[in-house]
């Protein structure tokens, strides 16, 4: 931080200079981001936010790694099967960027703890795998005026959106009359490239929200389907 205060970019962030600049880097280092889920989406989000230098990451996940996570979950290895995902992610962050503080929260987000866990941060990242918790996170972040960066994936498809306070929310994407907790990912699964692509887009959204640079995807859903070369930005109403 001392170097940045003098208008110089530390060597480790030099490749951030041309996009976020000194002012942006300072903002990233001072920012606090909660990532709900440290699996397919979350693992990649956490890795990239840590490398960028987002100063404080609150990692929320009550799950442990299983063998079937290895195809895509960046934080999973053959040596940490059975380890809590939030702890594993925090350990990884420790060895890639000592500037970043982590808070590993080894439990599932629910209606009882959501207010506490989603408060006191600048952005929340939705890296969940079920509809009802996503809707809960949407509701709480709206209530507390916290920007939310959403994504969801299935097979070769993914979708990403930033929901600022007052913006159109997930009720336009998920029919709530349906009892279904999961989407078509139950049929299609998720190959490695899909969460990586969606998570990378989420990271770019987080950077835009934290630094004020560019245009976040507000009231617009970026939808991709790499099987059919579809990349669309859809307008929600």
């Amino acid at each position, binding site marked *: 931080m001392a170097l940045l205060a003098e208008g110089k970019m530390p060597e480790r962030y030099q490749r951030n200079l041309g996009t976020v600049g000194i002012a942006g880097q300072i903002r990233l280092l001072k920012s606090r981001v909660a990532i709900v889920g440290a699996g397919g989406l979350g693992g990649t989000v956490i890795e990239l936010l840590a490398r960028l230098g987002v100063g404080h990451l609150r990692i929320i996940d009550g799950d442990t790694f299983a063998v079937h996570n290895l195809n895509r979950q960046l934080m999973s290895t053959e040596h940490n099967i059975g380890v809590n995902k939030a702890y594993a992610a925090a350990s990884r962050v420790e060895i890639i960027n000592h500037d970043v503080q982590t808070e590993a929260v080894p439990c599932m987000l629910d209606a009882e703890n959501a207010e506490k866990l989603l408060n006191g941060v600048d952005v929340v990242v939705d890296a969940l795998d079920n509809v009802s918790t*996503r809707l809960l996170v949407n509701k709480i972040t709206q209530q507390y005026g916290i920007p939310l960066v959403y994504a969801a994936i299935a097979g070769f498809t993914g979708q990403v959106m930033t929901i600022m306070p007052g913006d159109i929310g997930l009720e336009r994407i998920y029919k709530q009359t349906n009892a279904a907790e999961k989407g078509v990912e139950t049929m299609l699964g998720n190959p490695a490239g899909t969460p990586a692509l969606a998570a990378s887009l989420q990271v770019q959204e987080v950077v835009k929200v934290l630094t004020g640079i560019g245009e976040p995807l507000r009231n617009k859903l970026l939808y991709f389907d790499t099987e059919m070369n579809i990349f669309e930005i859809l307008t929600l109403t």
Partner: protein
Amino acid sequence: MVIEVRLYATLRRYRPSIPNGVFTADVPDGISIAELAHKLEIDPDEIHMIMVNGIGRETDGILADGDRVGLFPAVGGG
């Protein structure tokens, strides 16, 4: 009138002979999106998001000639 239908992700299996899920359909004037889904024999419970010309619409929305109707299932993985 003629509209273009785009079936996304798993909804493409309703037209297995059309791999990219994009086709034109001849439909009566004033047809609603719900009526279109019924005509195409797509289970309405599978349709979670509807886009007409890239803009979100409800299932009771009325279509116009030349509209591009996108039907999307629920995507919830992470």
